[in-house]
């Protein structure tokens, strides 16, 4: 195993090229930041850590090869999964078989952790967010007739599925629901259809890219309703592309930069110094994933079985996205955070733990 020399290698994979490469690059940089921090403090048990990052181009088979390389050529002791669902789902059973612990950073598909005790995840699954927003929309905002646009991938479908169930349970209605594709820019037809249903809120389950286009065009169509969203909104790009139209939109996420906790402020400061930008939710998740592995390594060392056990036993770890504890299903238990756009900035609304 990779503990042999005087460095310990940790693998990372995710999209470094292709349309989703920004997410991959942020994720990798965040993991790197966590590792640099430990190394500055002298490493783990006298050994330096090293991050080996591989591109999966957003494709399952590339992820598989990348992970095989990380395990067999680089002999990493653990993996950070900085990828989307397809690659993550492909890789999960293979790392389980190879018995190399993996921590998923931001992928929300429920199946990723189903394989066994070598795969954990530091973000809650899609349905948790859906349930949380349903609770907020119906109970806090008293919305009765909610329109939904969701991105047509498992991310959108799984969050929306839980949202719909919960909204109906709580006695409100879904006015209309329509899928859209990643990369879509023109929403005029969808929004015309939405407007015809006279909803009192519009829940957009997707990433900032399309979400910003939707809020902008919704305002232009004259659809002036409460905007609700998900952690995909959580990027400065949402504000840049959506301009003043984003004002008032509220979304769930797992991280906010103005969180006064020490760990968050430290992270934000170092990130800013290095990248001249604000860290986003995805970076925070990836940082936390690295952190989970590092803390476990500190407790046990590079033996994979012990390491996996230590990861599973993580409890109340101060992460940038809240206190991290893993449940028996290898899923994280931590609060959902509600944020809103106010005066052109993200502002904290409240946080609450959902299961």
């Amino acid at each position, binding site marked *: 195993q990779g503990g042999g020399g005087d460095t310990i290698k940790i693998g990372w994979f995710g999209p470094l*090229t*292709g*349309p989703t490469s920004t997410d991959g690059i942020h994720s990798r940089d965040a993991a790197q930041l966590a590792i640099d921090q430990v190394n500055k403090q002298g490493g783990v048990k006298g050994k330096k850590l090293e991050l080996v990052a591989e591109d999966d181009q957003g494709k399952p088979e590339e992820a598989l090869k990348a992970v095989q390389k990380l395990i067999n050529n680089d002999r990493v002791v653990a993996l950070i999964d900085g990828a989307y669902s397809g690659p993550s789902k492909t890789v999960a059973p293979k790392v389980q078989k190879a018995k190399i612990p993996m921590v998923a950073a931001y992928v929300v598909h429920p199946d990723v952790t189903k394989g066994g005790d070598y795969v954990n995840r530091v973000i809650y699954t899609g349905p948790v967010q859906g349930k949380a927003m349903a609770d907020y929309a119906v109970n806090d905002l008293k919305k009765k007739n909610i329109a939904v646009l969701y991105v047509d991938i498992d991310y959108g479908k799984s969050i929306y599925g839980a949202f719909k169930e919960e909204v109906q349970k709580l006695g409100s209605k879904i006015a209309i629901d*329509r899928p859209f594709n990643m990369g879509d820019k023109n929403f*005029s037809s969808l929004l015309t*259809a939405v407007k015809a249903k006279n909803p009192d809120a519009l829940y957009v389950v997707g990433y900032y890219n399309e979400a910003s*286009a939707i809020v902008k065009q919704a305002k*232009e169509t004259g659809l002036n309703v409460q905007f609700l969203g998900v952690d995909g909104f959580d990027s400065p790009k949402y504000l840049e*592309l959506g301009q003043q139209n984003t004002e008032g939109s509220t979304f769930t996420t797992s991280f906010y930069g103005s969180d006064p906790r020490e760990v968050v402020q430290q992270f934000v400061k170092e990130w800013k110094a290095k990248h001249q930008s604000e860290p986003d939710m995805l970076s925070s998740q990836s940082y936390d994933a690295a952190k989970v592995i590092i803390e476990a390594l500190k407790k046990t060392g590079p033996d994979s079985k012990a390491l996996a056990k230590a990861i599973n036993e993580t409890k109340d770890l101060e992460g940038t996205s809240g206190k991290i504890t893993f449940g028996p299903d290898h899923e994280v238990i931590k609060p959902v955070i509600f944020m809103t756009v106010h005066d052109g900035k993200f502002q904290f609304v409240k946080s609450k733990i959902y299961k």
Partner: protein
Amino acid sequence: MLAQQLLNGIALGFTYILIAVGLTMIYGVLKLLHFAHGVIYTVGAFSAMIGILYLNMNFIVAILFGMIIAGIAGVLVERLAYRPLRGTHPITTLISGVGIAIFVESLFQAIFTSDPRGFPATGMKVEPIHITSSISLTNSKLYIIIVGLVCLLLLYAFLKWTKMGVAIQAVSQDMRAASLMGVNVNQVVAVTFFIGSALAALAGAFVAYDFNSLFPTMGSIPGLKAFCVVVLGGLGSIPGTIIGGLILGIVESLSEGYLTGMVIDKDAIAFVILILILLLKPSGLFGKQVEKV
């Protein structure tokens, strides 16, 4: 709602038309499927952005700047990737075009990252215009329709009444005979690429402005759909392209507005229509069949 959806469709159709007209003309002169046309659209949008951001141009100048840069880019693509291949199997130009598309897209990703960015602010704000109480359109979309119409009329006049325009038609019909009439074929091809690319750039810049977003891969889907439009109209026919673009825009808009739970999403619907029409009319709406045996 129907009227609004039709209007949405027409506005969308005009962006398709502006991209597709270039493809049609280029197919006409060189009988070549120009797979790098989508990146030219992107080049147009980015050039306009650079014009505003770094060269302090105003909106209109920046759009013209984008058109010129894209026009030059189009001419260069022809010069470097297509001209050396004249006379070889059509598939080689196809691959060469795809190569250029990959090259330019990746280059843009290296320079600008794959992140979308906003279209820089100018005095021009995107605002809705209310036509009736329930029907509205953003001013930017209205500009696309108006500018598109003007460009098409100019193009028609150019092809019909100028010497170069007639030469373009002549080269489309018989390249060698045209050169024997003293037409400088390479010059005609360059002009065609320039015009076609400039029109695509116009569409690219307007779309970026309307949606306040531009990114390196923005041209790939519009590029593919433009092919659909061109074939729908019967490759090489400009009126066909116009009808094809409108059909596509309207069908997409209506299908998105009214249909739910489809197994085929709206990006693929374009091609479903295409294939249905080709089954009925194998050479497209305005295409001329028949090879004389």
